[in-house]
């Protein structure tokens, strides 16, 4: 009609973001580091979802993985050790329109940040938290972390660690209000992308633990998984991840698991013989603190200042009159 068509209506101000639009400074992680794979997967997610960089924020604590916000061309907050989650919660509370992501290492999350982690799970606020789990403190040159396997020799445990490693999966699934927990390995890009994408689309707090190689300090930690894919149990489901044909040929050890079944999820989480990969648990019905407590109104700094001034004026002292 009218010698024009709606196809010719263009919104030239509409941005089409490419991968480069999300790439910040050049990563300074060691070559071969699994953090690169996670970074790449997250950048792909941003591109595929066309997240406006100015509406996206990455928050991290301290550690190798916590350099993540530097490498994203979005907003970022490189926070304090173990404190990424409360910072992210504050951001989400005040700016619910932002897409909030949290990147923590295993030391950051499971040691100094444990209290925040537990309560972040319970508060179930809308965001994606990715724990880069390489089982070691890498940035500070090889100290044992809570997820280091028993017997790992490190600078702080020259005789090897004495205790069994913390199982983050069990912790997650044991906390009240947990709404999403997934486990991934960084060396299978398809599965990693799929899991991160589903975490992004989850309503609530999506926690993803990514097993990640540290080529420098724990180069052989994941060899049993790399050399024998059967040590990985892929949990598939129509509501979870779907194994591609190619990946299915490599990862033959797979089972169907309904992510809404928390008991079954806990069973998988507790297994020592295999590492479950996929979405263990998901429940979008869990209440979200940020939705419940979302402010009904927003106030600009000018508004607040005006109101405060008005209140303060009630208590102002007229010097001339008091002297008189």
């Amino acid at each position: 009609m009218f010698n024009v068509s709606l196809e010719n209506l263009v919104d030239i101000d509409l941005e089409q973001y490419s991968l480069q639009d999300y790439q910040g400074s050049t990563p300074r992680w060691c070559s071969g580091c699994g953090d690169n794979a996670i970074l790449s997967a997250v950048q792909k997610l941003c591109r595929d979802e066309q997240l406006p960089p100015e509406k996206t924020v990455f928050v991290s604590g301290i550690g190798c993985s916590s350099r993540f916000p530097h490498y994203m061309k979005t907003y970022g907050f490189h926070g304090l050790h173990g404190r990424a989650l409360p910072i992210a919660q504050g951001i989400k509370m005040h700016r619910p329109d932002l897409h909030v992501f949290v990147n923590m290492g295993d030391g950051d999350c499971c040691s100094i940040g444990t209290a925040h982690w537990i309560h972040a799970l319970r508060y179930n606020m809308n965001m994606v938290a990715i724990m880069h789990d390489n089982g070691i403190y890498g940035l500070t040159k090889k100290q044992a972390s809570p997820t280091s396997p028993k017997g790992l020799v490190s600078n702080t445990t020259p005789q090897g660690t004495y205790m069994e490693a913390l199982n983050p999966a069990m912790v997650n699934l044991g906390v009240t209000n947990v709404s999403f927990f997934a486990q991934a390995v960084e060396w299978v890009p398809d599965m990693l992308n799929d899991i991160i994408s589903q975490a992004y689309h989850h309503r609530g707090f999506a926690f993803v633990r990514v097993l990640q190689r540290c080529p420098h300090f724990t180069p052989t930690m994941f060899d049993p998984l790399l050399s024998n894919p059967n040590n990985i149990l892929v949990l598939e489901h129509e509501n979870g991840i779907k194994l591609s044909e190619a990946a299915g040929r490599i990862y033959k050890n797979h089972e169907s698991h309904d992510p809404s079944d928390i008991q079954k999820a806990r069973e998988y989480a507790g297994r020592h013989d295999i590492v479950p990969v996929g979405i263990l648990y998901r429940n979008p019905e869990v209440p979200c603190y940020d939705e419940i407590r979302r402010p009904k109104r927003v106030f600009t700094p000018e508004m607040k200042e005006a109101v405060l001034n008005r209140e303060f004026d009630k208590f102002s002292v007229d010097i001339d009159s008091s002297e008189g």
Partner: protein
Amino acid sequence: MSNSNHKPQASSPAVEVEEFLKTLDTFAEPVAESLPAGPQAPERPALPFQPDEDAGPLNQALERNFAKLLEYHYTAHTSVWESLAPFPEGAFRTSVKGLMSAQLYAFRDADRLRFDYPVLLPENSADHWRLSLREVVDGLLEALADKEEASHLKRALLRVERHIKLLLPKKNGEHLSALWRKAAAAVGKESGKDASKLADELAALGKSLGVDGPLFGFTPDAPTRILGAAGQYDWHRRVAAFASELGDLLNAVSGILAADQAHSPEAHSADTLHAALGKEGSGDFDLDAFSSLLQTGKGGDGLPEARRRRIEQVLKDLKAGQKWFGGHPVMAEIADSCKGALALSRERESTFLAFFKAVHIARLEVANRYDAAGHDAFYQEFDRTALLPEERHLIPPVILSLSPEKLDAAETGALLEILNADLNIKVLLILDDFFGRPDGAKTFWQPGVAGKLASMAMNLNHAFVLQCPGANLDAMTRGFEDGIAFDGPALFAVFQPEAEERTALPAFLRSAAAGESRLMPAFTFHPGISAGLANRLNLAATPQRSALWPESSLTFLNGETEISVSLPYTPVDFLAMDGRFDDHFVAISGQVENERLLPVGEFLARSPETIERALPYVLMVDEDGRMFKVITTRAIIATARQLGESWRHFQELGGINNSFVSAILEEELARLKAEHQAEIEALENNHREEMERSLDQLGKDVVSRIAAGLLSEGPMSMAAMPVAPAAPKPKAAPEPQPAAAPAETAAPEPPAPAAEEEESIVVEDAYIDTPLCTSCNDCISLNSQMFAYDANKQAFVKDASKGTFRQLVEAAEKCPVHIIHPGKPVNPDEPGLEDLIKKAEAYN
């Protein structure tokens, strides 16, 4: 002095808090309103809507006022508004200014609309004579389509296009290259950081276009420019071959004179010989003696005087005409009145007659076939009838650009003379309005004569005719091409309105809407096609030409529900957006429902007796997207009917719903039906008789069987009753013969190889299982020329020759997910290959 400022107010803390909150409330905005739009919700044209409100009071108000509205419909008296019962707030508007046809709502944002204007008229391009700026930009976008790294340029290019469009109102006709430079700089500036880099990149893209020329927006003079360019392009193509022949002819004719000169006594004089030999050589010869020898020789008589004069005249005429065929801008001279065009045409014809007469004579002279006895008389009377068709084709047409205001009685007469004469004048009539007031007083605006000139010209059956809205650039330019190529007069009537205040519609859309509404049906008429009227008249450029009104789908929101309806676009919709007719339209909120309110399409289609007490309406939308039913008057409906009839007339001429054909078809159909009915009746009679005969026979058979049974006293079996002859038993299908089974098929299939047993593949070239790459940078940091990342930041072997086989093997060893396959070495002379190949085997 008041002390209220320095004493705390006497109130409890609870009241304080409450007051504090109340104060906040006065500043507060709802969150949803103040938050920016979500990232996945880019701005798109919002749908028109009907608010989800109770329509009860509205319907009641309409019911109470229906008689008054009917009075308005019949009389167009706006005085009825004074006695109307009140409508709910905002639900009734006596003016529709600012409202837009619902069908056009989607196109309301003119800045975001990409259409065929601006038009580029390329200079010195062999491939195109016109291109729209959109095509130019789309060409660049296509070239950049696969380049991920150029995505910022793709966005910026559309901004360049927009900037050029913004610049055009002041720079109409400026060259694309200049406009591009300015727009590129502006876009660079907008982008903030890297401004000069982006501007440079865009400027470089502009330079890479390979076409340049003036650019014209949708302005009233654009069709004249476009027609000029079409004419010039056509002329260049036409004369290319002749220009070369003309050069040869000039050389040959000059040669005759030169040869004559060489034989003349002057050429043989001692002085001329002396001059020819120069100072050095002349001393050695007795040139006087040589000259006298030459003078006495035979064959020195030279050309006859009459022939020489004739050839000299021919040469002069040829040279005078030569300028037309050497890049002369023949279409630059555009007449602006019919009389001027006639004079120019006559002048051009006499110039070209003299020229072609010279060409004819020159051809005869060069072939030495000019016979003065016969040819002199013929060329004395040389006129256009003596021209060959291909020569007539070489006379450049005169272009006449007319505006309807200039068409007084004398000019209209001259126009008819042009269109009916054997003259090659191409008339461009640029219309910017269809309506006039014949007596200049209070009569209703009516369709004027200018808008009908094209159909009048068609009836002369002599001139090529094009009528179309200027917005339909394709139809217009095709029409220009055909009209220019036509050997005779042509009339191009183009609706190209100026942007004006009386309508909120951009000029381009107004032009397109005229075509849609049948005010300006697009057609061409080519009298040179002899295969019947249906072929001569072409309505293909009119949208939905088989229909009375073009229909389009409109989607709107009713509360939360999306509703799609099919709407015709009629002259009523068009006129509702023309401020001059504002008194003829009144708007009621779109939610109003009444069975006596009829959509205009239905109103126009109904018989008069069924619409006596009904009101016609069209759908319009206000600035906020709210829908209104806009009621119109009988006068507007009468205009719409008149235009509809004109369109029906065109359709019939073009062979669509032709009434003669319909009548014949109906007759033929009735005849066939009658024949068919007769056949059916005959068959039924036949069948009935057969049945009766069979039943009769059956009765007899049954009786005889019963009688036989009774006589034999045997049990009577039903099976014995010959009720009907048994159907012949279908012949049993032959048993499938076992084909001579080859021995191998009989043998059991060899078991399929187990899935685990994969064939061993010999890897020749290095490659990476890219989808499995974890972007760990190992290989890239080893050799970034050999390995690279794709658009998904996953590695692939970019060029194995950019490094050594050793590096390939090293990368394979280093790769944490073992997805690099080094293949075989490219360079057989690389040191240590034996060892490396052995290592590579593990990864291939």
